[in-house]
């Protein structure tokens, strides 16, 4: 089931509208996280798991749900565009 699923992007972004007379400085690009659980739907049994120690550090027991967060605002702003 996992293989056919096309790779999704864990982070997406959009550029908010900015009017001509907007006094505030432009925000530029805003990002939002789209973790795997949005795409997996109802969890199927017997998914591959991390070891307990690894799971504790990764924040999830099942490998499919692991979602590494890398702050796009700090990383020069060019993250995986949705």
């Amino acid at each position, binding site marked *: 089931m996992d293989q056919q699923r096309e790779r999704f992007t864990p982070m997406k972004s959009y550029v908010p509208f900015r009017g001509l007379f907007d006094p505030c400085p432009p925000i530029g690009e805003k990002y939002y996280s789209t973790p795997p659980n949005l795409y997996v739907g109802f*969890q199927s049994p*017997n998914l591959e798991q991390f070891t*307990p*120690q690894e*799971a504790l550090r990764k924040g*999830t*027991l*099942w490998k499919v749900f692991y979602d590494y967060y890398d702050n796009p605002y700090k990383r020069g702003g060019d993250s995986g565009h949705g």
Partner: protein
Amino acid sequence: MANTMPIEYYQQLEEIQAVDFVIDELVLYLDTHPTDQNAIQQYNHFALYSKQIKQKFEESYGPLQKGSVNIRQDYWAWSGPWPWQV
């Protein structure tokens, strides 16, 4: 002069944390998949294992939580390091 606990203290504590995390994950999973026998089997395995390692930890380092058995008969064993000092 640092007053810290032996390395085993931290190793056992980490083991307990990892096992309890797996238990929490499986509890959430089993709430929505009550008929998944493999998960139930894994949950029972970890639940038993968690009891054992907690008992082993408490025998050497004192109670882990309220309601733990007080190892020593002559002294109320609630002493440091407190969780925030660990």
